[in-house]
């Protein structure tokens, strides 16, 4: 995390230009435009799914999904509650302690939205056994105050590329226990999101300057922003959680409904495009760069 030090004149200039009716970003991007980034999928051979995203400014994030067969406690009546435990998120942001407020908040909000959007029934193998997903995310370096967008993109791709070994033994072991057996062919394993209508959620952080909303704010933009909003996008909709965050140490000026609506519209507009390009990388391993 770099400390951006701008002189008052620079700050003022930047703030003014971002507040215009037709704002001008320092790198001449449109407000809905991402900075260039490079993404790779399935690069960790030992994981069930993995992704790596690198931003032009050197920010980098790795995500890995590993699946392990666990036995379910059968006497637990609350099976929905139980299935939630099938997902574990571990987050490591370089330079921030694992148990810091920021880390744990991000991890828990990520897990919260993932539980709702991962087809949990697909993890279920038999009456007695299920896959448990261990999602490990490492942010190697980042420039943003809140590297949520970066790690959510990586997590999205890792999950999308996740494949689970194919069960070859019977599914019904309610009365007669069987030990699960799997096909030895990795190629025959099933994609977690294969034919699911669900899709992993994406979290976008936007910077708010006056009435303007900026996607993927650069550190400079963040430092002059009045507010930040984190929006969750999944399956063509904006869903909870939606929360305001502070991107700069500057006194925040509060947020109004117009700004939220604008942010909502922006993410709704770009969401499908982001999903489409990420999916393209997932489905074709040879593509590496987008945007």
């Amino acid at each position, binding site marked *: 995390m770099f400390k951006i030090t701008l002189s008052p004149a620079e700050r003022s200039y930047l703030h003014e230009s971002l507040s215009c009716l037709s704002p001008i970003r320092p790198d001449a991007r449109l407000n809905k435009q991402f900075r260039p980034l490079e993404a790779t999928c399935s690069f960790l051979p030992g994981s069930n799914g993995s992704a790596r995203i690198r931003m032009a400014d050197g920010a980098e994030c790795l995500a890995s999904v590993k699946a392990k*067969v666990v036995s379910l406690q059968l006497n637990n009546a609350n099976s929905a509650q139980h299935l939630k435990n099938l997902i574990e998120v571990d987050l490591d942001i370089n330079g921030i302690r694992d148990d810091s407020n920021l880390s744990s908040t991000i991890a828990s909000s990520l897990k919260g939205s993932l539980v709702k959007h991962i087809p949990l029934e697909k993890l279920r193998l038999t009456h007695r056994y299920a896959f448990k997903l261990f999602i490990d995310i490492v942010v190697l370096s980042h420039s943003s105050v809140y590297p949520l967008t970066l790690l959510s993109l990586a997590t999205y791709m890792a999950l999308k590329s996740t494949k689970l070994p194919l069960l070859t033994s019977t599914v019904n072991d309610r009365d*007669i226990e069987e030990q699960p057996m799997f096909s030895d062919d990795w*190629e025959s394993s099933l994609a977690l999101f294969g034919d699911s209508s669900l899709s992993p959620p994406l979290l976008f952080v936007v910077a708010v300057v006056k009435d303007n909303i900026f996607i993927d704010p650069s550190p400079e933009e963040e430092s002059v922003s009045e507010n930040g909003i984190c929006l969750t996008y999944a399956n063509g909709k904006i869903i909870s959680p939606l929360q305001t965050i502070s991107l700069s140490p500057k006194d925040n000026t509060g947020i109004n409904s117009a700004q939220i609506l604008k942010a909502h519209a922006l993410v709704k507009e770009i969401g499908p495009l982001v999903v489409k390009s990420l999916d393209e990388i997932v489905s074709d391993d040879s593509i590496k760069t987008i945007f």
Partner: protein
Amino acid sequence: MPPSTKRLNNGLSVTTKVFVRSRNGGATKIVREHYLRDDVACYSKLCDQCEYSLETTPVLSHVPFSTAKLTKHYLILDTNIVLNAIDLLEGSQALFDVIIPQTVLEEVRNRSYPIYTRLRGLSKADAKRLIVFHNEFCKNTFVARQKGETINDYNDRLIRKVGEYYNSHLSNYGVKVFLLTDDKDNLKKCKDEHILALSLREYLGQLPNSEDLLDTLPSAQDDLQVAEFKYAEYYSQSRLIAGVKSSVLFQGPMNVSSYDIFEGTINLPSIFPKPILVRGRQNMNRATNGDLVVVELLPKSQWVAPSNDIVDETTLGNADNEDNDLIISDQERRLLNKEARRAQMEDESKLQPSAKVVGVIRRRWRLFTGQLSPNTITTNTNALNSCLVTLSEKSMPAVRIKTRKANDLLNMRIVVAIDDWPGTSKHPEGHFVRTLGPIEDKDTEQEALLLEHDVEYRPFSKNVLDCLPKEGHEWIVPVDLSSDEQLKKRRDLRDKLVCSIDPPGCVDIDDALHARKLPNGNFEVGVHIADVTHFVKPATALDQEGASRSTSVYLVDKRIDMLPTLLGTDLCSLKPYVDRFSFSVIWELDEDANIINVDFMKSIIKSREAFSYQDAQDRIDDSSNNDELTQGMRSLLALSKKLKKKRMDAGALNLSSPEVKVHMDSETSDPGEVEIKKLLDTNSLVEEFMLLANISVARKIYDAFPQIAMLRRHAPPPSTNFEALNEMLHIRKGMTISVENSRALSDSLDRCVDKNDEYFNTLVRIMATRCMMAAEYFVSGNFSYQEFKHYGLAADIYTHFTSPIRRYCDVLAHRQLAAAIGYEPLHPIQRDKTKMDLIVKNMNRRHRNAQFAGRASIEYYVGQVIKNTESSQEGYIIKVFTNGIVVLVPNFGVESLIKLEDMGDESSGLFDEKEFKLSFNDKIGNKRELHVFDKVTVYMKSVLNEMTGKRKAVFLLK
């Protein structure tokens, strides 16, 4: 995405293999780097392109095998060929210049480890010119697995690639390379891809001696099978593993009853107090004796009592209980398990928890000897015949083989291998391996017997013989005892008056003794054991051979030695009048044979005389003979009697087995007469001091090596073993045997006396012996001290030390004792507990087999004697069935079954289970009642069993 291949340097590149390993219910993605080289040699002597390192040379011949119909060719074998025709591959008639792709080797290893080791052995031998080609590491023959391709298809493709490569690689040298496979799909693909391929039948059909060769092939799979029977399918692997893990199913080795091939038991001592019963053809579900099986308890309504019938291959037609597809949940099964345990503990009825086999984990199929059942041969021509082979092992079912030579094989003792037991066949399917010779031929039967008991009887290899002293029979104890450091440590005991006492004609003299009265009134007693370890050094070929044979095997007219004869009968043998190295135990004993002091030493002795038991007895009894040697022997005898009394007081058992000896006509070596072994005082003289030496040595080596001491234990028998015998005794004679401890058992056996019948006590002892556990070797670290106990000898610790020429345990004990007294350190191999565990396991198995082989040999000869002398003999009924009785004839030490149909009217038979009584109308119409323990007169004659080709004593009740 196909894995990319990356070039590392000249001739080496790397790719990756990705697969899922599912083990213990988990599913792990495994990624392996896979290296490819372009310099994997083809091993053909014709090829001048491939390069070899210094250690390797080409193997495949310059002048490959060819016939009129086939040009010069090499062969590539597919996995199915290796698995089905390993015997042919090992034989010297066909299949030369063989290329085994690495893929095949791996597949063979996964399918059958024994065949894998045989294949590996072949690749080391030169005769067959067999090589392993590492096709998966060769850049030219490696192909990546395709998406959605099953592992079998992939392996087939790898193997076809080898065929393609070899043919193009050797195209300039005028040699063809045929891929042999019996996989139809693979053959078809070969044709499509223009790869030379043949099925094994097609190939052998083009050889000159094809008739013979085709006969040794396993039955062709493609024959239309008529479903003569339908067995329940085995559960899936996943169900078996999970079931065994959660104690819903049980896993254990199957013990098939030798009276009824459809009755087996499975011992699960940790779960059930008594063995679980498996009865009936359906419930046995293709399990054969010794297989490791998984069973499932039957519902209580289907529990049965152990069979009182005699069922063998001749009396088939078992009423099987109806197949009912009840689904029982795991929960209910657990309740059932509890129920079963309770039933066994309380035992209110004869019904026993019964089970059915639901899976076979590991087959115990080896090569079996047997003979064709004549009544199953359908035609007289030389057409392909499907016939049954009755195996010598009584608890194995008959095996179906297909052969063209059925008529030639009739009345021959043959070796067969079992291949498979399909669910639709009543009998396991196998194939003919080789002929041993005509039935009843002495040499044939002997070889069959050795094969049947897995006794290694081939001559010692050159490697082993090279380990013997170069001087051969000329070897002598060095004259100058100070010439060598080790020699200096030996004690010179040549002044002691040592003698040996053995059975007459003994040439491998293990032990010798001496005794001397000391000035203080005590006795100095020495036991001197042949110093085998002086010649058998650890980690030599000789030592390994000894360890693998573990024991000498004594047949009636033949001895299969554990060590080469030079050692056994000369250099080690404590022959009289010459100096020999020995390992001595010398005690100071007081008048009452209490040990005052004990000392162990390597020594040199000179035996004064080698006595037979009888000679020694005569010399002791001859009061006119008063020389020092005889005096010593008398002291030994007196002390041994005191030792024996002490042992008996401590509760040592005096058990009995119907031991007989067969006298051979010295000229024709035909068996002449049978004699019951007589025991002289001198027998027990030697025995007592050997026991004493063994116990003293056991203490010493346990002291020195608490973890790895080689010991021998004899577990107390579980009281359940005696239940049946006790019930018989109680009901028939009003006697009981108590089994709380060996003392009680010994005393109660003494009380089992029938005033009218002297032999009765011995009979009970014989039957009690059969209820005992077998003694076993063990490594001290595996048990706690309390468990070391030798029940039969009433000793708290015991080992075998006194017969190193014929037992390997004694060799180990010698080495440990030598280390314990600081003579020479223990070899690292013998300090490794896991290695010792393996040796011990082998020793126990070989020992058992040797005993069985010895007994079988006696049984065979007794049969021959009876053949010559039919007579009436007295016998005792020892078991009563619903349709027959078992009679033991003490004079010949044989027992045999008399079926009800041979005694009288079968329909009049009435079996009283409670009273152990069988009543029936005999042939004349008189009513007869037979009880267990009844003394009966039987007419003994020997009959050649048409089914098994075994001559057996057959009794006719008089």
